[in-house]
């Protein structure tokens, strides 16, 4: 899958979440996503960036514009070296939270994306990849 543009952003403070949203929006615009799809991927990026910050203790996101079979899309990879997720099934369930949020972010991000994958090792960290295609 060729990548035409890549940007890496560190997620250390809550202002970085805003930056992640801005970069995601810029990439979504460049790919030519519709307004609804832009809003979906931007909202998903906001959820995951905040999870990276709040639960993963900070990390980074790699935003890419990818091409596959003539289709273009935005792919985001969130990476943290935090405590990891012990039970992914449970974490994806609506209403479950280990913090003080609404417990909708992770499952919501999955529903807002075309592709969603999550790899997590307890004690080592979590890596979540989402993509939205035009």
């Amino acid at each position: 899958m060729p990548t035409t543009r890549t940007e890496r952003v560190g997620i250390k403070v809550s202002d970085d979440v805003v930056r992640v949203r801005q970069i995601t929006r810029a990439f979504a615009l460049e790919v030519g996503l519709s307004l609804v799809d832009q809003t979906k991927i931007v909202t998903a990026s906001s959820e995951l960036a905040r999870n990276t910050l709040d639960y993963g203790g900070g990390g980074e996101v790699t935003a890419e514009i990818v091409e596959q079979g003539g289709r273009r899309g935005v792919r985001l990879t969130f990476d943290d070296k935090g405590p990891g997720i012990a039970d992914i099934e449970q974490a994806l369930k609506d209403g479950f939270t280990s913090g003080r949020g609404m417990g909708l972010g992770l499952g919501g991000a999955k529903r807002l994306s075309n592709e969603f994958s999550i790899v997590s090792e307890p004690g080592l960290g979590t890596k979540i990849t989402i993509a939205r295609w035009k």
Partner: protein
Amino acid sequence: MAAQAGSDVASLVSRNEKTILPEWVEFQKKAGILHTGRISEGELQSQSRNFLHLLHEALTQGGTDTSGSAYEAAKAMLAELSRSRAMQGFSPSETATFIFSLKQPLFNAINRDASLSADQKASTVWTSTMLLDELGLFTLEIFQKSREEVIVRQQREIAELSTPVVKLWEGILALPLIGTLDSQRTQVVMENLLQTIVDDEAEIAIIDITGVPTVDTLTAQHLLKTVAAARLMGADCLISGIRPQIAQTMVHLGVELNVISKASLADAFAVALRQTGRTIVKAKRVEGYTFADKKSGGQDA
């Protein structure tokens, strides 16, 4: 030693003031300070002359110790210059050039001075370099501080300006939200709204989110908490300005706002009026009241 070196430089400056000043101004002009269009040649002349004068006094009284009281006047002038240049939009290097461009004329004067031995020349060059470097750094520090002050002031202005609570009608408030709802701003917004509810004895508050670009779960949670707090104070909340793409996204996220929501502020206002027992009626036109009616209908009647 410092005092000796200082008086060496001081006497050098006083002996060569007539050549140093025009040379210095020339160097500043060569650096393109006038091309910025923010300062006139006359101003540049008088600033340079004043500073050279103050520097000379400081050198005579306090040697090269720039932290001493002898330098207060010179530093005050530099600070003033630096601050005004920061406000006028000069770049840091354009501002620092004021001091650093004094080096060359000073060194030239030292070189030309026949009364100094080679050793004296070397030590005078060293002393004046140190001195000008210190003053240059001071200029930059003040410049940086002034810019930071501007940023802090703007941040405060934005925080205040962006969260106005508007009274729409007796007992009806509107809170148009604009921009990102981070935790700190939400706090300000919430306090503002609750206080205004008390002050105006409001029954209904309309929270308009037309200007909020992204509504994620955290934003939704902030909204719901604000609504819950307002309810505890006896005011009902309506949410307006949910754009189609935001609505779809919220459905996918699984967020439910258990409040009445409307697409536009106007719709929400109509609901609020109805809930407070008011209706909007189109005004009946009174016959022959307007100027146009008088002209056409007056004679027939």
